[in-house]
Structure formats: C-alpha cells, structure tokens
C-alpha cells in the first residue's frame, strides 16, 4: 500500500517539475531582451520540462499496466536529439540575418568570420591588391 503512495508522490513530483520547467522556459522566451538571449529558454528549460512530463507518464503507465513501454522513451530521445540541432540552426539564422543584439551578448565565436557575426564585410587579404 505504501509502495503505491510513494510512487504516486514521485509521479506527481515529476508532473509539477515538468510543468514548472516548461513554464520557466516560455517565460524566458517572452521576457528576455534580444534573440540570442531568448534562444536559451526554450532550448534548455522546455526540453527538460517535457522530459520530466514524459518520465511521469511512463512511470504512471508502468505502475497501472504492470509492464514498461518504450514509446515515451522514444519521444524523449527524439526531442533530446533534435533540440540542439534546432537551436544551432536558429542561432545561425539569427547571425545570418544580423539581428539586433544588446551589448552583453556581443561576444564573437572564434570559428566565425567577422562578416558572419554582423560586422562589415572585410576584404580577403589575397584579393584587392595589384
């Protein structure tokens, strides 16, 4: 009997944690100041939130039906693989379109050329002389 009470508590904890993480991610996406800051909320917090909710669902159906199921784990795995890819492509799109950024997010990734981070294009040193 106490076994089920403990499991119910664990499922309830995962449900509330997942909802809270997803809400905090969306809150960050709404309230932060520029696109590169807003990218942080959904890509990390919302992903861990939906992971928690799917773990809660998997535990619930495991307890009620007596055997584990792989489908929820499949959705979790798929989301955890695709979220960084989406974030990378969105960040590249933002750099490509030269979106406005506030002063604090003006760091330069070393592997990008100067014109790819929104500065004026610089002539290649091999061209333009002679």
């Amino acid at each position, binding site marked *: 009997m106490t076994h089920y009470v403990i499991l119910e508590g664990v499922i309830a904890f995962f*449900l509330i944690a997942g909802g809270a993480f*997803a809400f905090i991610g969306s809150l960050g996406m709404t309230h932060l100041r520029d696109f590169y800051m807003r990218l942080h909320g959904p890509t990390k917090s919302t992903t861990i*939130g939906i992971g928690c*909710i*799917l773990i809660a669902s998997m535990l*619930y159906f495991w307890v009620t039906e007596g055997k584990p199921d792989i489908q929820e784990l499949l959705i979790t795995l798929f989301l955890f693989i695709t979220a960084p890819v*989406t974030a990378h*492509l969105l960040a*590249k*799109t933002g750099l490509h379109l030269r979106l406005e950024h506030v002063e604090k997010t003006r760091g330069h990734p070393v592997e990008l050329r100067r014109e790819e981070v929104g500065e004026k294009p610089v002539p290649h040193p091999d061209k333009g002389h002679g």
Partner: protein
Amino acid sequence: MLDTALWISLALIVMALALNVYRLTIGPSLPDRLLALDTMYVNSIALIVLLGLWLNTKHYFEAALLIAMLGFISTVAVCKYLLRGDIIE
C-alpha cells in the same frame, strides 16, 4: 494527489502556451516567431501527453511522436530557407 498535480501541470503548460502566443504575435523578427512556433510544438506535445494521462489511455503517444517529428522538420526547413534562400539545393 495525482489529480491535483495534473491540474497544476495543465495550468502551467497552458500559461506557457499563452506566453508563446504572445511572443509569436509581437516577435520583432522572423527567427523570434520561428522560435515561438517551435516552443509551441514542444508545449503541445506536453499537453497531449497530459491529455493521455487524464483520459487514462495510451493512444495519444503516436500523435505526440508525429507532432515532434513534424515540428522538427518544419523548423529545419524554414531555417534552411532563411539561411540559403532555398530548401533543397
């Protein structure tokens, strides 16, 4: 206990969806709106999983997996279009 937790989680997810709609409406640039749409996909997966818990059925997980795949593919396609001006080169 589980009913209360389900209600709290549903309320939080619905508030997150409302915030996403707000960002989708006012978003100053195109990648902002794309990010809001992608987050709406993820939050709607959470909503469908919670609906499956509420109705005590497992039939909604295929729909959740389908929405996950379609969301990823559409986001990548629009990103490629914005980056290169073409989707399949």
